[in-house]
């Protein structure tokens, strides 16, 4: 039950209150015609009405590029300095959707598998996630097919739900969420007993339980060739995706020294699996696209118990050739049904 609510007219005040408390406030902001999560400078920039930003919140935990190591050359020897951020700034991300926040526990599993990636976890610890429930999903949304919902709470510290009366109910689940409420106390009002919440509906498009067995048994099915003829093998889908996490490690240096960088990569790009010898086990588009779907919908499930897709629809929107992963998986579900 939500105890507090915020009148949407006071959103600016909320931002200011958070900033005064030392939070770096990150929210959807317009940048050259696209909405992305950026640090809010002027509270008026914050746009909680945007259903789907171009990119997800993952870049605030897993940057597009970051150094792991800096080194200097000195007459044949090398001195190194680790670059892991020891104390990332206290941050609050406001305005992501429940699908976005649901991606965080999914990725936590991988980044904590045996070797704990502190680059990820230090930022996780320093960040509070305030999601906004969706009252108006669109046709690209399919969170309910992958275990989510328009007002899901996985991964968030606090959920804001829009009411009929132009307010946001504040529901907190964690200590971090309560800290936000504490900080925002001056802008909040007590919530009523029967607040009418605007709830969006996302029809379920497929059943994961029938999809996974089909995927496990149909690696060589012609379906993969049929759907991937049009794939361009770019990295757009992986980069805008909240749960895609593949990365590359590159050295950039000159004669004095250099830096080792960790940066985004995509299994769909043609040379992702190419060996130094030139041999590439996935050198066709159907092999690469199949890998993308399999990794998200079955391999990750086998390894970590969670589907690596939150149904946000970003890949579908950003794909140059309208490859819609929901349609692809629904197609597999259909094949699963007709084959039984």
């Amino acid at each position, binding site marked *: 039950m939500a105890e507090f609510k915020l009148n949407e007219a006071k959103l600016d005040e909320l931002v200011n209150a958070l900033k005064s408390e030392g939070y770096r406030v990150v929210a959807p902001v317009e940048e050259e015609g696209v909405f992305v999560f950026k640090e809010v400078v002027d509270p008026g920039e914050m746009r909680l009405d945007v259903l789907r930003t171009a990119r997800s919140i993952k870049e605030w935990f897993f940057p597009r590029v970051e150094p*792991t*190591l800096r*080194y200097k*050359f000195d007459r*044949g*020897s*090398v001195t*190194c300095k*680790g670059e*892991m951020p*020891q104390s990332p700034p206290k941050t609050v991300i406001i305005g992501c959707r429940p699908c976005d926040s649901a991606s965080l526990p999914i990725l936590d599993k*991988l*980044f904590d*598998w*045996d*070797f*704990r*990636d*502190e*680059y990820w976890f*230090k930022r996780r610890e320093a960040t509070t996630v305030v999601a906004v429930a969706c009252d108006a999903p669109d046709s690209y949304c399919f969170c309910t097919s992958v275990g989510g919902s328009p007002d899901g709470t996985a991964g968030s510290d606090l959920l804001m739900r829009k009411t009929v009366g132009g307010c946001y109910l504040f529901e907190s689940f964690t200590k971090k969420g309560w800290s936000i409420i504490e900080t925002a106390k001056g802008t909040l009002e007590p919530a009523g007993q029967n607040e009418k919440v605007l709830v969006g509906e996302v029809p379920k498009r497929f059943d994961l339980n029938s999809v996974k067995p089909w995927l496990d048994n149909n*690696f060589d099915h012609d379906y993969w060739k049929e759907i991937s003829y049009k794939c361009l093998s770019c990295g757009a889908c992986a980069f805008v995706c909240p749960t895609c*996490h*593949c*990365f*590359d*490690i*590159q*050295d950039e*240096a*000159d004669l004095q*020294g*250099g830096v*080792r960088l*960790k940066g985004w*990569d995509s*299994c769909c790009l043609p040379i*992702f*699996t*190419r*060996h*130094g*010898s*030139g041999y590439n*086990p*996935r050198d066709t588009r159907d*092999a690469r696209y199949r*890998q993308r779907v*399999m*990794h998200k919908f*079955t*391999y990750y499930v*086998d*390894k970590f118990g969670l589907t690596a897709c939150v149904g946000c629809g970003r890949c579908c929107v950003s794909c140059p050739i309208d490859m819609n992963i929901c349609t692809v998986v629904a197609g597999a579900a259909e094949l699963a049904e007709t084959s039984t």
Partner: protein
Amino acid sequence: MSADIYQPYLMRVEETTDEAPGIRTLKLVFQDTVAGQNFSFRAGQFGLYSVFGEGECTFCIASSPTRKGYIECSFQQVGRVTRALRSLEVGDTVGFRGPYGNWFPLDEMKGKNVILIGMGIGLAPVRSVIWNCLDLRDDFRDVTVIVGSRSVDLLVYKRELRQWEEMPDVNLVKTVDPGGETPDWDGKVGFVPTVVEEVAPSPDNAIVVICGPPIGIKFTLLSLEKLGFSPDQVYTTLENKMKCGLGKCGRCNVGNTYVCKDGPVFTAAQLKSLPQEF
């Protein structure tokens, strides 16, 4: 301070050996001697070796875990990082992250006959097992080492081949592909799968460790099957493009395994069950 999993050990090149055209072995010692003494690994594990400024590269640890304080790697020059590694000199600095991955089942191999097969540069991970067995010779029964190469000059660890040949308690069989022999070649001439059938080791109480090019492994596995070996008795190690080596970057994901975590050592049975995308 929390551990940074991407930080390498700093190593110093102590020895370089040119094994064959394009193939080199580096002996690396830890610049931090305490870290070196504390460092341990098991045969079959790998690491990410880097030349600062060029990049990181994945190779198995080719030396035996019974020998402390240093590690060895052997590689073939194919790209940027291997080119840089090959131009290093004694005293130069190399980065090393590891040991990663799983390992050959040395404990299970104890008390058994071991057949260790290496083809070309694939002999490198097998060498770790060979010396591991030889350093603990009494723990194993018959040790058969079968080494193959395209030609005589492409054989790696030539000096060690001679050592193993001279050991009375090691059955070393060396072979080169037809056409790769020299007039003074005193080993066999024939592809490894054929030679394996000739040597005809018994599958009773035996474990096979094999590494080499994919096609070599494929046909040798068929020969081993003919001899009665079950796919669970045969262990191999996969070479895959890797970047992080610790299960995060996704590059080595094949089926529901990550070669860097669930491998690189797999039984032939496990390999068969994976999508053939490696």
